[in-house]
């Protein structure tokens, strides 16, 4: 148990420290790298709770895909941090206000009170037959929540199609490679033999 507690505090402390570094690092690329460290420690906390599926999915989706794209964009954009920092004090009251509201909501949801989070009694039960939590998540997700799950998928798909539609331009006069045409070219139609008169060329 002692080891468990030590590991928990290591993950938790590194998670919070790296989250602080995300907003205080001078270089935006370093910020993203700290963010990745934060994701990792979040995954570690999931592992400690025995939710290995969530931990792996967190690493695959957020670290393996989302953060790569963040890093990609931040590296390409060349963000000027000094200019971003100028407005820091102006925005501080608004940021603090949002933070306080969130804190209040969390206290309402998880603290004692009229809005106390319901116990898991009414929640769908994956059944005791589920051996691993991967199986348990699957059984709840594809039975009780199947419409919500598919709906969320469709929302993401629409977002993807929309962003492609916004950025797709068909410029005229661009030559594209057509593999089918290339591989079906025939030497008889593609190559012609010409007799070039000396000193005159084909002109």
């Amino acid at each position, binding site marked *: 148990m002692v*080891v468990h507690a030590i590991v928990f505090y290591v993950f938790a402390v590194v998670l919070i420290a790296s989250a602080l570094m995300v907003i205080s690092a001078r*270089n935006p*690329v*370093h910020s993203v*790298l700290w963010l*990745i460290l934060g994701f990792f420690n979040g995954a570690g906390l999931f592992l400690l709770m025995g939710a*290995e*599926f969530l931990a*792996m*999915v967190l*690493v*695959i989706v957020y*670290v*393996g*895909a989302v953060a*790569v*794209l963040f*890093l*990609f964009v931040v*590296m*390409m954009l060349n963000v000027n941090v000094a200019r971003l920092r100028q407005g820091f004090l102006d925005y501080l009251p608004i940021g603090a206000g949002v933070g306080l509201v969130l804190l209040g909501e969390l206290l309402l949801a998880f603290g004692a009170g009229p809005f106390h989070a319901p116990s898991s009694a009414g929640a769908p039960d994956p059944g005791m037959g589920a051996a*691993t939590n*991967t199986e348990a998540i699957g059984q709840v997700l594809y039975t009780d929540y199947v419409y919500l799950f598919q709906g969320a998928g469709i929302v993401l798909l629409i977002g993807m199609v929309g962003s492609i539609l916004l950025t797709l331009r068909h410029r005229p006069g661009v030559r594209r*490679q057509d593999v089918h045409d290339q591989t079906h070219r025939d030497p008889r139609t593609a190559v012609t033999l010409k007799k070039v008169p000396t000193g005159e060329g084909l002109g």
Partner: protein
Amino acid sequence: MAELWTGYIWPTIIIIAQIVALVVPLLLAVAYLTYAERRVIGGIQLRIGPHRVGPFGLLQPIADGLKLFFNEIVVPAGASPVVYLLAPMLTFLLSLVAWAVIPVADGWVIADINVGILYLFAISSLGVYGIIMAGWASNSRYAFLGGLRSAAQMVSYEVAIGFVMISVLMSAGTLNLTGVVEAQRDVWYIIPHLPMFVLFFISVLAETNRHPFDLPEAEAELVAGYNVEYSGMAFALFFLGEYANMILMSGMVTTLFLGGWLPLFAFPPFTWIPGVIWFALKVAVCLFIFILTRAALPRYRYDQLMRLGWKVFLPLSLAWVVITAGALHVFGWLPQ
């Protein structure tokens, strides 16, 4: 005190011993893979290859290692030193940690976790960070271009790899790699999933930045891409990481498609050979194909690479997921 010994210290010693027993042969294999590659490509190109150091040149990898060890590590001016030095370490580390879940023989696995396939996928998708960090931290145009290419390329091919893995794990009915191998006792997945095996192998070539998809380090246009500024052990770690990744991916192909440690046929002369030898043999065959591809194929152009990943592999692998699911459901082959 006795509880401390049996509960913590003794398991720690056992795990460290297991790790050493896995990593030492692995690093030897990495060293001799570089030698094998040079000899095989030499043979293909009607040369001899390295043959001067030791008998048949067998000490060449050690000589190379020593040379790199004594080289100076140069950190370019304007580089971001911490990220610059972290990148090769990360590449090397990631190529080793994934081995924790790969069963090299029946029960010979360091961590037999329930989500082995997901763990492998997660670790292999992290490999991009070493390269992109190196490209950015070097503060050099060539390295940066290499890093960006690599990021786009690896993210694209991961999608196809993920779908192929879904097909395999649907057939096996488990995310545990030992379970996946056991599920192949009757038939290796290379037979029902042959198209996906080919697709997976090609995606793996792209994922490890090997020929014909080695655009991140295309020496003709980017000099050496992301690792152009590295020298000494920092370069050696990239080099070792790349080759260890090849072995890792071959191990992955072996586990998912070639039946892991299972013998070719389940009757005597084949079953006498221990599982770890079978595993090593299958990995060696995959590595040989890696090397042959390098010698035989020219490099892809960047737009061709992207076209192959997104317009060919993604629809094919997605279709195969649907076909597999349909077949398993209709014929009642769903694993329990």
